[in-house]
């Protein structure tokens, strides 16, 4: 045949191997989440089948060793700490991000951004340590031990602030500069440009950032575990201790067996479902404008 007929040279065999290795790896990568889901489900199955979801709400208390499995205090703990953290972090993060992008001197803004990026990578156990040793005694002056709902909210809000700020910064940076110049050409000053042009245009991205931060708050374990007090009860004030779902797992996994262990896996499954939904919504919303 001619000089460019198809052949089975060593190169094309290598290319084939490359394709299959890449394909197999991505199947493996994608399968991890499925594997996690299946194993959680398998471990949680006894609890879901034998005890039933309704008893998680109707049992008189959480005494797993006496077969009392009321998860409501932990659910409330998770909801309240998350809500508090988001309520604190959102306005603070938005304002700080706007300052950083539009009002801070350039040199300061660079350093500020670097600090935030650094904080995004600080281990939660370090936040927890600081919260336990420094913040809790400080809050404790208001009454109690200081290991309570309020402290947990504050530490958690600090942990999600970088997420809120970084996504806000990048969605504000994605606003087309023509729009900004257009605004400036109309004689709008900086603040008006931000309020009338940037914020409306970046709203979607900021919303996604808050969603992701919420997911992070729901799933956070160590920091909350170390500062929330971990008493199983529904809090009636900000200074009452709380226990979240994640802290409950971390505290009891060490000695839990049979039904008790199974329930911890069930609550893990619940967490995973919750966070996965939030994250998927966020991802889909983030991508949709680009896909169209």
């Amino acid at each position: 045949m001619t000089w460019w007929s198809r052949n089975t040279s060593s190169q094309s065999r290598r290319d084939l191997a490359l394709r299959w290795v890449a394909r197999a790896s991505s199947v493996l990568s994608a399968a991890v989440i499925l594997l996690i889901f299946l194993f959680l489900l398998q471990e949680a199955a006894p609890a879901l089948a034998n005890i039933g979801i309704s008893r998680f709400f109707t049992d008189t208390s959480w005494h797993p060793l006496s077969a009392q499995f009321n998860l409501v205090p932990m659910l409330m703990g998770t909801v309240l700490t998350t809500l508090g953290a988001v309520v604190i972090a959102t306005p603070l993060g938005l304002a700080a991000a706007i300052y950083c992008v539009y009002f801070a001197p350039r040199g300061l803004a660079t350093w500020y951004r670097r600090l935030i990026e650094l904080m995004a990578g600080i281990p939660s156990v370090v936040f927890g340590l600081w919260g336990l040793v420094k913040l809790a005694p400080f809050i404790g002056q208001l009454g109690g031990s200081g290991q309570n709902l309020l402290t947990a909210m504050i530490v958690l809000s600090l942990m999600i602030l970088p997420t809120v700020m970084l996504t806000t910064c990048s969605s504000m940076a994605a606003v087309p500069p023509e729009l900004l110049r257009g605004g400036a050409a109309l004689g709008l000053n900086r603040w008006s440009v931000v309020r009338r042009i940037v914020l409306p245009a970046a709203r979607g991205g900021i919303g996604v950032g808050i969603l992701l931060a919420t997911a992070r708050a729901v799933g956070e374990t160590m920091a909350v575990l170390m500062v929330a007090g971990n008493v199983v009860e529904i809090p009636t004030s900000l200074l009452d201790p709380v226990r979240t779902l994640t802290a409950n797992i971390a505290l009891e996994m060490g000695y839990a067996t049979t039904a008790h262990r199974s329930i911890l896996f069930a609550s893990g499954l619940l967490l995973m479902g919750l966070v996965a939904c939030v994250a998927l919504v966020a991802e889909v919303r983030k991508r949709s404008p680009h896909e169209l």
Partner: protein
Amino acid sequence: MNSETRNDRLSLSFSRRFGPELATVLTGIPALVVAGMFGWILADILYHGLTQFSWAFLTSAPEDAGRQGGISTILVSTLMILGITLIIVVPVSLATAVELAERRSRSVRFDRLVRRSLDVLAACPSIVFGLFGNAFFCVYLKMGYSILAGGLTLACMVLPLLIRTSEQAIRAVPDEYRHAAASLGLSRWTTLFRIVLPAALPAMAAGLVLSIGRALSETAALIFTSGYVTRSPESLFDSGRAMSVHIYDLAMNVPGGNPRAYATAATLLIVLLVINGIAVRLTRIAGLTLNPSLEKNH
């Protein structure tokens, strides 16, 4: 209509006069608060940690449940766990990133499925990884509480981060190179290993460094997989305590453990600071390596 215009003009002139200064203050104060809190945390950990810090702290084993002595065995365990994680996660991530970034026409649906799965994986709380690692690696695969189980659990956790950064790095390589390679009839293998990956290397390294930071920061996923034995592990099947677990245990379960907890936290923090610095530097190098005259023409 008329009054609306006037209203508009009024609010405009109002914000022109008071806007910028007021806005600077109104956004500047929260920014200051945030920076202040973060500064407090960093300064607190570093100050109280470094006053406890000494060379002996790094080279001696913990004593009296960690209240005395150092963290040498903890460092060994941490490095072994990290080693397992990287050995597993680097090749898998690289190959997956190549699949996602270098696909040609076929199977868009497959790629989307992989991507969505990785998104969910990335969002999973670390305690869920802990549960999974315990059930799968420790119990089902009978590894028990071990370095191996901890490392593999962390590998699952870091996977989406490393895939995403590697994919972005590969995508950032200008298509011009791929076109030139194709027009010369170079195989995919040669194109990838001689041209695309070398060009993407600095950015991929930045992603790898960030992934290492993420792995070192993790606690919740390790408590029930690699465990909390403070002895130096003799094999991959021994339990070993990572630095972050050590901090947690000293602060929560050991009365009088705070000073050593601080010292360990400061050590971890300094490692992470260095890692962060390296990542920033690598990202800058990545920007320079890809010839700026070869931007993508979109």
